[in-house]
């Protein structure tokens, strides 16, 4: 992942902030920006020797020069005059006091270390002399810790955030929603894609924070790149586990929907546990673990790992088997997953359901393929497209209703469904016999079916004139036929029998299906 250009960046001198945030001064207290590069180290015992310190020197105070707050202040002043990189002193017996104020006033970075300043001096000197080695050391340490962390998004993000102090690393889904890690705002320092099996983007690892040195972004990039493999492994393991276990998928999807609908804010803010975003450059914040807990138990992260669409316009679908004896859940789930594409496959009452990022038209085509591939007669319904998971329930209900009224082998679309579809859903085979019995007197006089056709047309169109138009006959012809129908005992104007008559005519006119 590290390009040759990146490597060259590693050779630029380390900055003070880099030493404190990811290097030999980790854990030290720092006042000031720390933006100056460190080229060498000078141990100062006598303040007078500060006059000969070259620019970009890390001044380490010992002995007399560190004997009191006043001595540190004098050293800071002289360091400022010499354009030194920073002043480092032991924290023992030292109160930040006006030293912190002076650091701000003069723009000189002041660092208090807990260990022996002489030991610090040696470590800083080594980092200043060989910046590439210092950065490589950080990357190597991260590699070791990532290997120990194993394929867990939570632990991987924990390692990244503890090693890259002063930066906030987060795992985002491709739509920018926060999945794990520490949130931050502003322009990102480095971004690394976590690819999915098909070469698309499963998630994005993003680091925010201060631009600590020209070399820092490429170091961060290298560290993030180290996390790609464990994160891919984590996603793959999650997917395998879930695909093996339909119940687990259903539970996860239910939790996801509950989580999404319980938020009043738009879905994009899911997992926003209430705490503010980590400000840029803040080294200490909520521990990454707590952050993950806040994002609904990592539900969202797991959904993304499964390549489930969790944002953007989404469309629900339902597949309803016409025979109740369908216990081969595993097989149905697999067929749906294979034909519909990435998304959850859930058991809902009598049907199977799920959602997809595909628009309704394309989803309907996929579902038709799915129905053809399934070994038993099933009907499918497509819900209306919704903008986010928060109102996915609406789309799911629509899809289920559509699947319910749809005959086997047919994909019904809730957004296109009208009253006619309800009629189409009538169990024609069952009603045919009663319909024939009801209309028996009429059928016995209707040799060529013109009377049934006329009756249906009048009832469908709501009047003789329009029925004549539909049948292509004169209005008087329709009136005459209605007289014969009435003579057979059927009054189309009687509200009490009109619906039953209409249904019977409809059942007998439609062809048997299934």
């Amino acid at each position, binding site marked *: 992942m590290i390009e040759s250009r990146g490597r060259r960046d590693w050779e630029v001198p380390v900055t003070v902030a880099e030493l404190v945030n990811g290097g030999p001064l980790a854990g030290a207290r720092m006042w000031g920006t720390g933006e100056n590069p460190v080229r060498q180290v000078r141990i100062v015992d006598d303040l007078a020797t500060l006059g000969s310190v070259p620019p970009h020197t890390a001044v380490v105070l010992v002995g007399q020069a560190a*004997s009191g707050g006043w001595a540190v202040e*004098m050293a800071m*002043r002289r360091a400022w005059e010499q354009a030194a990189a920073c002043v480092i002193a032991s924290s023992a017996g030292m109160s930040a006091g006006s030293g912190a104020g002076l650091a701000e006033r003069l723009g000189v970075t002041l660092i208090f270390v807990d260990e022996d300043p002489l030991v610090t001096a040696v470590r800083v000197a080594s980092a200043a002399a060989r910046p590439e080695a210092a950065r490589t050391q950080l990357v190597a340490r991260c590699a070791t810790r990532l290997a120990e962390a194993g394929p867990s998004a939570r632990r991987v993000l924990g390692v990244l955030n503890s090693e890259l102090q002063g930066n906030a690393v987060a795992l985002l889904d491709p739509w920018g929603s926060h999945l794990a890690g520490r949130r931050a705002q502003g322009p990102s320092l480095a971004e690394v894609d976590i690819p999915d099996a098909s070469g698309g983007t499963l998630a994005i690892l993003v680091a925010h924070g201060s631009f600590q040195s020209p070399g820092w972004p490429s170091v961060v990039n290298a560290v993030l790149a180290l996390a790609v493999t464990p994160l891919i492994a984590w996603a793959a393991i999650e997917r395998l586990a879930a695909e093996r276990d339909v119940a687990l998928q259903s539970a996860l999807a239910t939790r996801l929907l509950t989580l999404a609908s319980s938020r009043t804010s738009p879905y994009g803010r899911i997992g926003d546990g209430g705490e503010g975003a980590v400000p840029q450059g803040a080294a200490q914040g909520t521990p990454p673990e707590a952050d993950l807990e806040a994002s609904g138990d990592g539900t969202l992260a797991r959904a993304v790992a499964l390549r489930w669409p969790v944002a953007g316009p989404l469309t629900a679908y339902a597949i309803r088997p016409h025979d109740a004896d369908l216990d081969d859940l595993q097989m149905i789930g697999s067929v749906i997953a294979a034909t519909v594409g990435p998304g959850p496959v859930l058991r809902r009452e009598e049907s199977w359901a799920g959602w997809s990022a595909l628009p309704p038209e394309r989803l309907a085509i996929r579902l038709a393929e799915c129905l053809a591939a399934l070994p038993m007669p099933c009907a499918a319904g497509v819900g209306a497209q919704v903008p986010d998971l928060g109102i996915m329930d609406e789309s799911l209900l629509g899809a289920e209703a559509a699947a319910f009224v749809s005959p086997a082998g047919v994909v019904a679309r809730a957004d296109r469904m009208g009253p006619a579809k309800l009629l189409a859903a009538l169990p024609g085979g069952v009603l045919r016999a009663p319909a024939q019995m009801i209309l028996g007197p009429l059928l016995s006089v209707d040799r060529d079916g013109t009377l049934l056709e006329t009756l249906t047309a009048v009832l469908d169109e709501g009047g003789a004139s329009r029925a004549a138009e539909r049948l292509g006959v004169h209005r008087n012809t329709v009136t005459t036929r209605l007289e014969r129908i009435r003579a057979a005992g059927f009054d189309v104007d009687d509200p009490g029998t009109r619906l039953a008559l209409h249904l019977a005519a409809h059942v007998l006119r439609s062809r048997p299906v299934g």
Partner: protein
Amino acid sequence: MSPTVEGTHPKIDSMSLDAFAAGSQLFATGAAELSFHLTLDWARSVLGDGVRVSRAADLPPQTICAAICLVGSSTALSERLPGGNEPVRVIRGLERRLGQKIGAVVALNLDAESALLPVITAALLGVPLVDGDGSGRVFPLIKQSSYTLGGVSATPLVMAGPADDVVVLDTAPDRVEELIRPLVLALGGWTVTACYPMTAEVLARVLVPGTVSRLMEAGVPGAPRSVAAPYGVRTLCRGRIVAVESSTGHGMDLTLPSLPSSIVVEEREGLGRLIRLEAHNEIVFALADGAMVAMAPDQICMISTVDGMVVDVDKVAPGLEVEVMVVRAAPVWHTEEGIALGGPRAFGVPL
């Protein structure tokens, strides 16, 4: 009220005593102290016709002069009242040791009680007070004087306490401080001390001249404060004390009466600098944003903007509005020897 003038020399009488006392407060602490008022009352009660103030050069050259000062705690002075004859006993003690009559007294420094005790002594003995002192400002140690710089020994030194004791100290000058600290405690917490016996001829060469008459002028109501600073005075900053901390890194091995402390003043005007005053008995040096802007032997003092009084470094508190002033020391203090005796290294600061 202006000081009484006899010929070219002023005289401290009941009229001019107040001006002299006020003048002694302009760059020194202690005006509000009970002990100062007590000493002032003592001076008033013994002044009689007044004390003649004489230039050293105007005295017969062989006149023996002694420096008079208060050694010990001024609080102790207000708690254990003087018997009234301490100045006489101390002078008689020194005369017995020297076998010579003391013909004039001079101040070691002109800080509060130490300015008034020579006046009381001169009044009680009927001898003139020499116009000048051994410092031109105040230092905490007896050896820190222009007399030492001029090669005069502080010993023999005589101390008289409130309990009728007289102690004659015959020792090498660098042993003085070590010996008198425990002695002062045993003598009752404070003593009138006579030291640096020398002839008027020598005194004329080693004293910081004219300081008594200066303070008499400066203490007249309406006179500018700068009159009390013959070698110059400047304002370092006006601001608010934001922190008072104990300090480290200097003077821990010295036997000075108080502990090192650090006072941070935030400048009100201009650059809004952070002024750090490092104090050890007195303010030894001042940093502005870490840069050295003033140091001993020049005298650095904080003057309260509320009442115009000098603020004692041991009684300072955050929130106080002060003007930090630097009084330039007499030229003798700016010599190599003077800086060694009264500069920051004398206070244990390795600068």
